[in-house]
């Protein structure tokens, strides 16, 4: 299978903090790939470099055949992204947010309307399409962001902690959409999470990242076999020497969501 994302020796430093430390990995076309790691591991920083929002300190990246640094416009057309923090315009309606995106990405008017209707139905927001986003709950916003990220038919969808701060039911729902999409349309799904069960269940391959380093890459089963453990939690513990404290991560996620909602 061909690789749609190739990363070699990627490093990002902020002053003397090394957020991402010489990581290399690749993602196959049509794969569901997870970055699993605790808060501050370097997940968002990596996604930002892959999606042209940050320039790497060193290393090389290819996204769908394009270099995000030198060929940013072509790279940008190839992906959709759901950011860790909210990125909708609260003063616009759900439909207007979608339309804005469609126009920016050059989706022709007729197709745009049709796809917006389709996608809003898909994420079950069609009955709220004319509501202002500021009236939406965190879960609804996330669903809208997913729909928006898919509007221009990207080859890859990046999701940075898409289920952070959502209740389990909404989380399940969201993964159902994404898996369906991945299986039916072959969209490559690259997501980050600090939830073990999610990575284990959804991703075909997982990269475990800690303190800016990728410590292991493989399927859930491979990681468990490699460490002689029964669960991904134990595998994670064996590989990194620490556990992910979810309560801590959840609390900070909720705070972030609240700030974003104001």
């Amino acid at each position, binding site marked *: 299978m061909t690789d749609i994302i190739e990363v070699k020796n990627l490093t990002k430093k902020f002053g003397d903090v090394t957020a991402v430390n010489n990581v290399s990995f690749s993602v196959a076309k049509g794969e569901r790939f997870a970055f699993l790691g605790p808060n501050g591991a370097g997940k968002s920083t990596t996604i930002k470099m892959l999606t042209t929002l*940050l*320039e790497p300190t060193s290393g090389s990246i290819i996204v769908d055949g394009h270099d995000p640094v030198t060929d940013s416009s*072509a790279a940008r057309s190839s992906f959709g992204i759901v*950011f860790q923090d*909210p*990125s909708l*315009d609260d003063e*616009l309606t759900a439909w*207007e947010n979608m339309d804005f995106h469609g126009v*920016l990405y050059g989706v022709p008017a007729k197709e745009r309307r049709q796809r917006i209707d389709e996608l809003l139905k898909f994420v079950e927001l069609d009955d709220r399409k004319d509501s202002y986003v500021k009236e939406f709950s965190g879960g609804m916003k996330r669903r809208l962001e997913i729909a928006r990220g898919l509007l221009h038919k990207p080859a890859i969808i990046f999701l940075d902690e898409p289920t952070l701060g959502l209740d389990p039911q909404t989380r399940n729902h969201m993964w159902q959409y994404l898996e369906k999409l991945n299986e039916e349309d072959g969209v490559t799904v690259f997501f980050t999470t600090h939830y073990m069960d999610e990575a284990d269940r959804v991703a075909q391959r997982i990269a475990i990242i800690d303190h800016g380093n990728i410590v292991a890459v493989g399927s859930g089963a491979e990681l468990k076999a490699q460490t002689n453990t029964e669960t991904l939690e134990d595998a994670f513990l064996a590989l990194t020497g620490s556990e992910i404290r979810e309560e801590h991560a959840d609390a900070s996620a909720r705070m972030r969501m609240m700030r974003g909602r104001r």
Partner: protein
Amino acid sequence: MFRTIYIMWLREMKRFIRSRSRIIGSLAQPLLFLLAFGYGLGAVFSAAGQGNYIMFLAPGIIGMSIIFTSIFNGVQVIWDRQFGFLKETLVAPVPRLAIMIGRTLGGASVAALQGCIVLVMTSFVGFHPYSWPLVIPAILVMLLIGLLFSALGIAVGSLMRDMQGFQLVMNFLVQPLFFLSGALFPLKGAPMLLTIIARADPLSYGIDALRGFLINGSTFGIGLDLAVLAAFSIVFLAMGSYFFSKIQA
């Protein structure tokens, strides 16, 4: 390119039209100035042989509402960054220049609209343009002033990381630009130092051009006014695009 400019412009317009409290709020200040200065100083002004103060003041107040509205609009880049929407535009496969121009045009249109509302308001306190057809070029001047200061606002907003900076901009940039522009007093006969400062302030030329079209009272000459406004607009647009393109998330 054009669709990007259009959609960015449309967004600014929608946000403006929907924020009724902002529109009303931003009318309070011009009204206050018109009443307090217009009526308060009117008698002194005409006693000094300068004519009708309301007629002189109204274009200055229109200019005030335009500079406040347009810089405020430009600096909203900070809001977009804070609330995350900026990222949506930054990952889009479109030139940063188009995003910047669309935003600037949106801000300018909003400011010119606001200027027109203030123009209507001034007619209630006794202002009337000396020629109605010349109101049209006056509105174009409002757009140009809006363009200039929207671009400046975006340039400044792109350099800032948080909202604290916003108050600084308002206090140390917008207020001096307004008060030293000759919006409230005639530059003819003003002390030398003040005249020099006012001549370096682009808003002076905007207000002078408005006076030219609205009360046939330009001091610098409309040709010079328009040339200076255009030159500043181009410089600020270039600066704004540059700083905007350097934003990283």
